[in-house]
């Protein structure tokens, strides 16, 4: 008899935990990602308002549009979407999208003074950090595997991340290319990502 009670309790607790993680916690993480990206975009705007970067510069426009795309489709960003995007990069359309993004970005950075270049890269790196944290926290396997590790080594990871020394950071440009296109008006998500 005790087995029956235990099984029912286990079932109810498992169902509740799964619902909490896949629905409620995911909603919270999406809202948190958006809030962080809005705050980042706002800081970037304030830097431009104080004259550190020009509103009309390509670097500012590209970075802002990319953040906008990430904010807009934050509810769709997860590990499976990232894998899908990287897999699709072999197709000609997506490769063109990535090439276009890389060319625009390199052109914008080559024209900009050093201070502006550093600001754009710093903003990008921070955006990638928030997005990656979101990806880890919204997948049950990554969450269970990596969160304890990240909890203890958060500062060290962030320091390494900010130095642009993690090769994973460079892979995030795949997502940036899709986000830049998604940041445009009237774009359907599936065609951008």
């Amino acid at each position, binding site marked *: 008899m005790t087995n*029956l009670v235990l*099984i029912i309790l286990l079932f109810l607790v*498992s169902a509740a935990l799964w619902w909490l993680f*896949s629905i409620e916690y995911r909603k919270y993480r999406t809202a948190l990602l958006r809030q962080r990206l809005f705050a980042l975009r706002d800081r970037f705007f304030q830097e431009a308002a104080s004259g550190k970067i020009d509103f009309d510069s390509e670097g500012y426009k590209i970075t802002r549009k990319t953040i906008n*795309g990430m904010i807009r489709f934050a*509810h769709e960003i997860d590990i499976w979407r990232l894998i899908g995007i990287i897999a*699709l990069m072999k197709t000609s359309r997506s490769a063109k999208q990535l090439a276009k993004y890389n060319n625009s970005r390199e052109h914008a950075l080559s024209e900009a003074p050093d201070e502006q270049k550093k600001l754009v890269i710093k903003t990008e790196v921070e955006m990638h950090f928030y997005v990656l944290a979101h990806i880890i926290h919204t997948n049950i396997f990554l969450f269970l595997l990596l969160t304890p590790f990240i909890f203890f080594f958060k500062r060290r990871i962030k320091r390494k991340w900010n130095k642009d020394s993690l090769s994973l950071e460079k892979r995030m440009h795949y997502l940036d290319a899709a986000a830049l296109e998604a940041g445009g008006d009237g774009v359907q998500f599936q065609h951008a990502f």
Partner: protein
Amino acid sequence: MENKEEAEEKTKQLDIIVGGCVKAFRTLINASVYVLLFYFIYLSINSLAGKETDANIALLADLSTGCSKLLLALTILSVLLATFGILYGRKQERLKKDVIRDLSEYRTKYEQILDPERTSSNLANNGDTRPEDKP
């Protein structure tokens, strides 16, 4: 020119297929969790199969001990706390959206003064995902 259009068409189809695969995989993960949960139901029913159901009497006998009463009380309290916690969170979320809806217009106007060509994230005016962007 026709070859280029064909290639574009094929790429679009591939986009749709890969997008579909990603969605299918996500659904599979979610569905497998529900299968696991129903397996627990099956186990619970199976444990009673072929036996006489003294379960209710046994349950009452179990609950009559002080320790079980305490455990039951703690369980009920936990469920109530969790429920009220979730309701509180939902209420706070609604309030937050109301604030965003009220204040976002002023922020937009301020930014447009300094940057007339400012671009937007195109979320709904309360910060929610646009209905047309939802899967």
